[in-house]
């Protein structure tokens, strides 16, 4: 697999959006059969770069060459026609359409449905990712949905396959299946551009890595020869501090959930079955799981957005299952949902208004329903100061903040209210490393001060780092928690449902 001319050559590509230069003179190249990692924090410019390669965005300056010829795709279909395929991080799938229809939509000249269905079965089997073409995509697990995306690309025999954060929705076992497939593809001569911030995975899979920071290429390396920590520091451009935690003894049980079951309101939601757990004062309990296994539903049930039979949730001996979010807040049970824009915060409202959103009860920001705007603003300012939220002031709309800053604000809003129990879902999702470290530290400090913290997360590294006990959420069921210390990734993977009963064709093929 050593060809001398690169398959794709990026030369001095620049792209600016209003207020931000997303890519600034980026150059690198990929050879056929190579697995090339693109590393960088959120906002480093990885997404923009691959969108240019896939024809979704056009560069302002610079050249791209594919197969030693000028490459200027005007739209994705042109990119596909020239052998470039892409698997998106947020899948470009249609829940209410079936697998075959979804795949047909990603092809420029699909064969008739029946022939296509047969091809899907063949190709998906060959690459160890079996798929039933007649199933509705909305009914598939996240891992299976990703297969749809991958097969969609493979059917067009791509020369270059771009994968944007492909493993964030997979269990460790599913990751192994995917890697086997990718290695097979590479061995057949397909180049793979692999975007991720999971460094161990990159070390295991990739031949080369290009590191982006602030829109520029800051370094390249051979991932096999560097440690994950070294690569992380190249990404961030600074030394990283691991969150410090004091040893604490867990105290009394604060929150007790018993046999909680919820039927989802939306057709493709997840049903929760008989979930039971105990959260003690001073501990951090982690709930891991691949997206779509009931995380949102669990948070809604714990926050009070979903009303339950009274006794399914007990807080310090008081049944609170039937109480709404504000009644729970008054008692000291607070939460922060995953989606910042639209759930934890209203994008078009100011930070002051967003501070009021969940702080009204505990901070006394309203008397008899009449809002004390001055106090609300002071509360917002307190959050901003205490959690280093970068913003011109509290009267700025939430959507104007960067993801990391808004997340610090949203988490800070709950932490500043001194909760006795805090439930968070994906506390550092899409947040840069430094903000993530700050948020994790704040959660640890909160538990050290005696609160019970429940962290729902898909980021297993995060859970391994900050939790005392770990439980896995799989298809709406929660495993018994186990002490985090000493758990191996393989054990965690099995707790998460292994390969989710997906047929592992590699072993048979």
């Amino acid at each position, binding site marked *: 697999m050593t060809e001398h001319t690169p398959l794709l050559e990026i030369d001095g590509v620049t792209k600016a959006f209003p207020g931000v230069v997303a890519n600034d003179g980026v150059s690198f190249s990929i050879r056929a059969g190579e697995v090339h990692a693109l590393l960088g924090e959120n906002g480093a410019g990885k997404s923009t770069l691959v969108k240019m390669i896939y*024809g*979704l*965005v056009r560069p302002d300056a610079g050249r791209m060459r594919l197969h030693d010829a000028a490459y200027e795709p005007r739209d994705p279909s042109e990119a596909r026609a020239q052998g470039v395929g892409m698997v998106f991080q947020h899948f470009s*799938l249609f829940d209410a*359409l079936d697998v075959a*229809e979804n795949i047909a939509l*990603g092809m420029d000249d699909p064969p008739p449905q029946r022939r296509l269905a047969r091809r899907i079965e063949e190709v998906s089997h060959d690459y160890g990712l079996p798929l039933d073409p007649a199933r509705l995509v909305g009914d598939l697990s996240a891992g299976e949905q990703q297969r749809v995306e991958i097969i969609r690309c493979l059917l067009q025999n791509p020369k270059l396959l771009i994968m944007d954060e492909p493993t964030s929705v997979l269990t460790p076992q599913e990751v192994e299946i995917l890697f086997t497939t990718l290695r097979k593809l590479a061995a057949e001569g397909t180049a793979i551009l692999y975007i991720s911030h999971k460094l161990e995975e990159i070390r295991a899979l990739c031949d080369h890595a290009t590191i982006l920071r602030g829109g520029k290429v800051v370094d390249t390396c051979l991932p096999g020869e560097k440690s994950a920590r070294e690569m992380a520091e190249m990404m961030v451009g600074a030394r990283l501090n691991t969150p410090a935690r004091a040893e604490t003894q867990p105290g009394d049980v604060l929150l007790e959930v018993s046999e909680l079951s919820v039927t989802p309101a939306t*057709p493709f939601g997840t049903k929760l079955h008989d979930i039971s757990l105990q959260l003690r004062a001073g501990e951090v309990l982690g709930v891991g799981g691949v997206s779509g296994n009931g995380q949102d539903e669990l948070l809604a049930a714990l926050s009070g957005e979903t009303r339950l039979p009274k006794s399914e949730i007990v807080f310090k001996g008081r049944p609170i299952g039937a109480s709404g979010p504000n009644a729970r807040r008054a008692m000291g049970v607070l939460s922060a949902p995953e989606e910042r824009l639209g759930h934890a915060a209203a994008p078009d409202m100011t930070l002051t208004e967003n501070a009021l959103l969940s702080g009204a009860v505990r901070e006394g920001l309203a008397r008899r329903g009449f809002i004390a705007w001055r106090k609300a603003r002071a509360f917002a300012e307190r959050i901003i100061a205490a959690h280093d939220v970068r913003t011109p002031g509290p009267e700025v709309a939430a959507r104007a903040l960067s993801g990391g800053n808004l997340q610090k604000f949203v988490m800070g809003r709950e932490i500043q209210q001194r909760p006795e129990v805090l439930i968070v879902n994906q506390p550092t999702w899409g947040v840069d490393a430094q903000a993530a470290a700050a948020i994790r530290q704040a959660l640890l400090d909160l538990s050290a001060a005696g609160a019970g913290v429940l962290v729902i997360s898909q980021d297993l590294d995060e859970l391994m780092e900050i939790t005392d006990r770990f439980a896995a959420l799989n298809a709406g069921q929660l495993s018994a928690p186990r002490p985090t210390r000493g758990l191996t990734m393989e054990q965690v993977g099995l707790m998460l449902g292994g390969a989710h009963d997906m047929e592992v064709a590699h072993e048979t093929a």
Partner: protein
Amino acid sequence: MDLSAIDPLVLAASLMIAATPIMLAGIGELISEKAGVLNLGVEGMMITGAITGFAIAVQTGNPYLGMIAAMAGGAALALIFAVLTQLLLANHVASGLALTLFGLGFSSLLGQPYVGVRPPRTFKLEIPVLSDIPVLGRVLFQHDLIVYISVIVVALVWYFLKYTRAGLILRAVGENHDAAHALGYGVVKVRFLAILFGGATAGLGGAYLSLVRVPQWTEGMTAGAGWIALALVVFASWRPWRVLLGAYLFGGIVVLQLNLQAAGVRVPVEYLAMSPYLITILVLVIISSDRARASLAAPGSLNRIFHASH
């Protein structure tokens, strides 16, 4: 009261006529909603079609030219909606309402010289052989051209959505516009075309009212038909053949109600005249109370504003 005056055959034949305007408007709205756009301006597009069709038919003496003009009129109004919602990113609900309010005013302005004028006649198209079948022939095969066209349009829409690639793309755009955009489909273009199609069929439906069913021009003559067409799409769970079924059921209610009025049933006329609206509400309730089905059938991106940031 003389119920024997109601001839079931005439009833059956006339329900097809009563059903045609809402079927046309409904099937157009279905396409528009399948592409993810809820256009509440159906009433406005229908009545605009009713008057432009009427005016052109009277001016040229040719009802079919009038119907073509009605389609253009409905589509022209739909174009305003498309520009507002797709290019200027205005709120769909407000824009649809604006369309209806504007259409009602515009049509009565345009229609002033035509009040009391008789339109040129349309001809019944008796399908040879079939129309001679006893009973059925009279009910099904002795209508004007538009009745048949409306059925053909439903069939074509069904085929288009189910078997063509363009139909698949349209459904994809309605289901998840962000994903469709990421795959490189022109969301705005697809929606523009769908909205225009909806406008054209609504216009044709309106012209059928003023040129065939009534036939004359009166202000506000659609009397909620556009809204009923919107309800019809919900009733149909976004499936073309059910639009046809629903339209005929509804047509039956309207015709029966009119016949009861004529037969002198001892219920005030006004209460009978309420029945189509009340029954529409009732049907909406029954359909939407079926939680799982209702949410599965509705296109995923319906009524969400699409703006490609990058």
